[in-house]
């Protein structure tokens, strides 16, 4: 493999005991929190493989929930996440299960109901060293590591909407690294997920919100955990 960075070897600063079962789990929770769009009322976590077998001893359950409370993998409140969630009136449940043959051993499927009453299903895996990948959002296969900004749109399924979005990205000098569209035939709408190399200065969401046919738009930023005591490897 290519030479890893110094910070791939030393760090991250994290809450133990396991980079994949604890730090990675917290990161998955945090990404799910961002993707589910805000305050969580109820969450069911389906744990697969090694997550299912060892989640109590590794604190995977506490870490997942801490992430859903928007805590970082290096936050010492992580081990008290059950109490924190209870205080916020969040209902949570951990369900060991089998998500299938070819599923990564450290995988969790979140079924989240937010305060707006929306339900989202998000599946992700902790692939080692605290690194994670989100593989499914509301039934759409994706491959997001959370290391780059992601734009999520929900829009009318009609010609021109996507080209308007990509045109705005072009005008702002933003390069697309990965994108996916999925449509719902029932209500003639579509969701689109775009992973961008980086952002530039302008107000991207405001510009995209103004596109005719746009229902809503979300921007998920790589979370900067480099301030304080966390290292770069800790950022989502």
């Amino acid at each position, binding site marked *: 493999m290519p030479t890893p960075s*110094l910070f791939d070897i*030393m760090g991250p*600063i994290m809450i*133990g005991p396991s980079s994949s079962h604890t730090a990675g789990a917290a990161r998955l929770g945090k990404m799910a929190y961002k993707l589910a769009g805000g305050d969580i009322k109820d969450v069911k976590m389906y744990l697969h493989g090694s997550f299912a077998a060892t989640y109590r001893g590794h*604190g995977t359950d506490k870490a997942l929930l801490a992430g859903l409370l928007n805590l970082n993998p290096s936050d010492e409140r992580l081990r008290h996440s059950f109490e924190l969630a209870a205080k916020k009136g969040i209902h949570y449940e951990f369900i060991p299960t089998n998500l299938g043959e070819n599923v990564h051993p450290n995988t969790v499927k979140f079924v989240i109901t937010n305060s707006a009453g929306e339900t989202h299903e998000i599946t992700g895996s902790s692939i080692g060293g605290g690194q994670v990948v989100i593989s499914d959002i509301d039934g759409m296969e994706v491959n997001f590591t959370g290391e780059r900004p992601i734009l999520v749109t929900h829009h009318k399924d009609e010609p021109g909407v996507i080209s308007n979005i990509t045109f705005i990205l072009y005008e702002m000098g933003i390069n697309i690294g990965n994108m996916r569209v999925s449509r719902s035939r029932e209500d003639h709408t579509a969701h689109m997920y775009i992973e961008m190399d980086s952002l530039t200065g302008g107000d991207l969401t405001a510009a995209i919100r103004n596109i005719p046919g746009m229902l809503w738009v979300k921007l998920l930023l790589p979370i900067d955990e480099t301030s304080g005591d966390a*290292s770069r490897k800790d950022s989502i």
Partner: protein
Amino acid sequence: MNAQTVIKICQEKGISLSDFALSQESEQDNISKTEILTRFGQMLSVMETAARTARETPIHSVSGLTGGDAYLYEQRRKKRSLLGSTASKAVACALSCSEVNASMGRIVACPTAGSCGIVPAAVLSVQEEYDLPREAIVKGLICAGLVGQIIGEHACLAGAQGGCQAECGSASAMAAAAVVELLGGSPAQSFDAAAIAIKNSLGLVCDPVAGLVEIPCIKRNAGGVMNALTAADMALAGIVSRIPFDDTVDAMNRVGRQLPTALRETAAGGLATTKTGLELAETLKNR
């Protein structure tokens, strides 16, 4: 990148391994040396706390399987120890970091969470004994990182891939090189120490009881730092590793591949499947 090349560059330029690593990271990742040093300083602070916490108060793991050993050891070593002050402090610090990790406390993965006690224990015990400034210790951590970079490139650092030799073995090599640099040894001597440390942990299996980062991980961190200090002490005396560092990494890589899956973090072999290991795992399941 390999050690042979790095040693040559350092000799030509008259720089230390940490100077080399600092410049390389700064150039390749477009980040200032000051920022790299700041971030390593933050890591050092976390290490200092983790290396102290479980010595001062007995702390227990989330599973309840382990805990209290760093405290127990600290109490005795203050009165007497077979190892002398530096080495016994190193053992105590390694136990403390690992117990903090198992209790869901804050640590620095270096290179992994399971092996998080070895590098801090080595540099902090040497710092105390030789009264070294904090800046020197930060540079020592960077030197340790460089050794890990080379291992990561040519072998691996994950127990699931290469067994415990890849985690505690790598950490020992990283710590050994750092200690040699801290005490004024040459880059070549640092890599001799790292090579000796790898040779002494070659083939070490990853066999955690119940799949948790506790048994035998915590005590292997104590063993790992002793390996590191022994290797550094030999290298500082001028002892050379007949098998150079790059070759030992190659051996570690091949040995890791030859290890059966049962001995690579699956809890399907070794200590995990002993009578007691299985009983402990069963107790946890029924709780």
